[in-house]
């Protein structure tokens, strides 16, 4: 989705006006939030992220102006929280729900929004919203081509980057065609997570973006009439590399952590992740050798944003908004971007920050393996969610049940 300069102006203008209109309301929100305990349901698989959420909790409690207690409910899968809200709705529980805040994006968001399970709009009334870089980072208001309409608030940007160990691979392939050649010339040294895993599906979308004749097709829902013909190049790309994949494509890693582990164990030479700072953070944590570096493909890689959303029946909805706002605080965002902490890319607009806040970001080291914003290149927007569903389905039919 490309916005015109005029549309940007309108959005930016509207978002500047909104906080002033909401200022009165916001003090009502913070008053109601005081003393609330917010249950944030978020994936708990990464100790670094868990520590960061604990830090946000400490901030929410320490800052006298909030007095909100944050509890991180650690999930193995975001779907568990979605199922919880769904069960509450089915049981007729329209208030006092157990989930106050969910870390969410993509299909989960689309499903919850379609089922009217979300509270909102709230994001654009947050006092820190004007700091968000809506113009420069359109992914913060567009989740898989679905306008967020203020039903979720962004907190980190992600972009697909490839990771490799310079000790084993001096010059990595830089384009899809080079990558295809490299994989077939180095059998067993590349893998991707098994779709419908999120990262695996992202790899398929990245390939599709590169091999499809007209990538703008991806921004609208799948057109069944031309779908089959459109995706032929994707399948021929995959048919080409599968015999040369790790385990000859007879087994696939389960998800991003499993793929990262294969790189760490030396089972593969190129892996990829949805966080440009992951490699640096993993090097800092001692999980990857310090010779690991990252690269992107010429023409750009897929990027999106992580969001927080509030269920329609959240018991502590005011507290949840306070947390959503706090995560947009420049100091908190700068901490998330610190490669020693998370290495997540901020959603804020540097130009909108005060000099003092900008200095927090300028002071950050990039991280030994992290690419600079220029090196990261263009961000390709996520295709419409129907593409992911359709391609996953076909992938499973073609490759998922071969045995």
């Amino acid at each position: 989705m490309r916005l015109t300069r005029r549309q940007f102006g309108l959005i930016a203008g509207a978002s500047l006006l909104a906080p002033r209109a909401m200022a009165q309301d916001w003090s009502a929100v913070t008053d109601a939030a005081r003393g609330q305990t917010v249950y944030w349901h978020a994936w708990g698989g990464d100790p670094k992220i868990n520590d960061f959420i604990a830090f946000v909790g400490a901030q929410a409690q320490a800052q006298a102006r909030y007095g909100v207690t944050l509890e991180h409910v650690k999930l193995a899968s975001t779907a568990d929280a979605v199922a919880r809200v769904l069960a509450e709705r089915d049981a007729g529980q329209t208030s006092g729900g157990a989930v106050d805040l969910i870390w969410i994006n993509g299909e989960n968001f689309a499903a919850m929004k379609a089922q009217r399970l979300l509270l909102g709009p709230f994001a654009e009334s947050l006092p820190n919203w004007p700091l968000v870089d809506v113009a420069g980072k359109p992914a913060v208001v567009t989740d898989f081509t679905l306008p967020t309409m203020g039903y979720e608030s962004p907190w980190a940007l992600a972009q697909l980057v490839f990771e490799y160990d310079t000790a084993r691979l001096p010059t990595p392939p830089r384009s899809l065609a080079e990558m295809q050649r490299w994989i077939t010339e180095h059998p067993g040294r590349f893998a991707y997570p098994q779709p419908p895993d999120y990262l695996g599906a992202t790899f398929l979308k990245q390939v599709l973006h590169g091999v499809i004749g007209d990538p703008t097709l991806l921004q609208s829902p799948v057109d069944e009439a031309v779908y089959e013909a459109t995706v032929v190049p994707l399948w021929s790309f995959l048919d080409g590399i599968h015999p040369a994949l790790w385990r000859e494509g007879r087994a696939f890693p389960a998800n991003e952590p499993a793929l990262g582990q294969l790189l760490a164990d030396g089972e593969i030479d190129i892996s990829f992740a949805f966080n440009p700072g992951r490699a640096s953070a993993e090097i800092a944590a001692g999980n990857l050798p310090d010779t690991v570096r990252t690269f992107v493909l010429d023409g750009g890689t897929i990027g999106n944003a992580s969001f927080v959303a509030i269920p329609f029946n959240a018991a502590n909805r005011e507290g949840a908004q306070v947390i959503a706002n706090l995560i947009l605080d420049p100091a908190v965002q700068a901490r998330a971007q610190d490669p020693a902490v998370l290495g997540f890319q901020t959603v804020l607009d540097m130009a909108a920050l005060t000099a003092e806040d900008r200095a927090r970001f300028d002071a950050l080291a990039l991280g030994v393996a992290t690419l600079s914003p220029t090196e990261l290149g263009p961000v390709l927007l996520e295709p419409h969610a129907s593409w992911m569903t359709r391609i996953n389905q076909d992938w499973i039919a073609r490759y998922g049940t071969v045995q």
Partner: protein
Amino acid sequence: MTVGDRLLRLAPGVTLCLLAVPVLAGLAGTLAPAFGIDPLSGRGAGLSAFADLWDWPGLRAAVWLSVTSGVGSSLLALVISLGVVATLIGRPGFATVQRLLSPLLAVPHAAAALGLAFLIAPSGWIARILSPWATGWTQPPDLLILNDPAGLALTLGLVAKETPFLLLMILAALPQTDADRRLTVAASLGYGRVSAFALTVLPALYAQLRLPVYAVIAYAMTAVEMAMILGPTLPPSLSVQVVLWATEPNLAHRGTAAAAALVQVALVIAALGLWRLGEAVGRSLLCHAARSGWRAARADLALQPLLLGLALAPALALTAGLAGLAVWSVAGPWTFPEALPDTLTLQTWSRAAPGLWQAATTSLTLALAATLAALALVLACLEAEHRFGLNPSATVLWLLYLPLIVPQVAFLPGLQMLALSAGAQGGWGAVAAVHGVFVLPYVFLSLSAPWRAWDGRIAVQGAALGASPRRIFWQLRLPILLAPVLTAAAVGLAVSVGQYLPTLLIGGGRVETLTTEAVALSSGGNRRVIGTYALLQMALPAVGFALALALPRLVYANRRGMGTG
């Protein structure tokens, strides 16, 4: 009839109600979406969910995998555990086996699987230790060892995890079989060790072991964590596919998941039917061998090492895998092909320390509450059965074991709906009650056979000397059966500590236990963190099992006939 007697008489009915209500609610929650009754699907009632399942190209392979790995691993685990007992009973090594048992039993399934995976993977510990000096590998070879299409790695993992459980069940049941005297008689008639065990002890033992074996089969066929880590993925086993469908973010396959869960239940029932046929065949073979007078004294020479070898392989694999995780929990950088990490650090542990104490306390409190309640109910049922001559029908038994054979992921949403409608959500009590639903069947199946096999002549003697039924229960039966009672409690404790989905769903995420923390963390695949939590998660049940084995020996140190062998 006293008030106590009347209450006791009600016990079986009350227990069944306590189990039946959640189980039936859970099943209704499974049946409804499978037949299209789901507000989300937008489809009318019908069989379209089953049609979707039928159209899934992986169905046959997934079903086949569930059956082969489930039944195959159960059969192997049974043969191994019986073999160990047959070979070692009455020998010094037997006590060692018993001591080793408790920590192995307490290993959480996911941790056991990850430990094994790290051990046998091409970049795993064995390969690291042998590389490059023996193998010449400077980078891991591209070998399909884990996630192999035939499910061999998965079967190995299940065998390693189920053998200790069956061994424990055998040890609890053995005193009721009068094994020593039977074996002595058989040996004096010239029977070999293994054949003497098979012909004289096994028939009495297996009658008590049948229900635990069925639970193992049901568990192995529906296991999720192990199958996810060790099993094939193209397609995965049916139980894993149920989880994948149920947790799909766009919520489109909830009906398919429910339909597959019902197919899974039917599969388990069919496999148990098949197993029963196998039992009949085994019985007639044994009878034939007994009538033929086949003593097989020489067969011991070959059989004993074979059985011990079979038993050692999974035990060693499990232990080494866990040791690997333990090393990871203190490891600095550790790359292939280093046999050990370059540096050691306590960073992972110090990171995990905050909040650990509270999670451990919650786990223990929940487990104690659920286990004590389940134990009291089971004892009341068994005592009522004995005193009033009640006989549980087959239907009742099936109801009792339903929580064990219905895949949790399909059964819990219905249960959650019930808890939410009843307003019992997020509370500690509701979570303990749901743990009870899963703990009770295990306590019952661990305890019922040894309890029923108790020599009733002791009670007759007591009654003849003027003891009341109450006194016979408290002063004769319970003390004599202390070992199986404590074992059942330890099993219950371990089952409760291991619950993930029930704790999360019913507790609404507000009841934080070691397992909810551990499972969330292990979804990130970080071996260091997994190692830390696996060790801690083991610690609680391990203490329970150790107590269950040690206490009876301490209490009855002065009574030779009341030991555990």
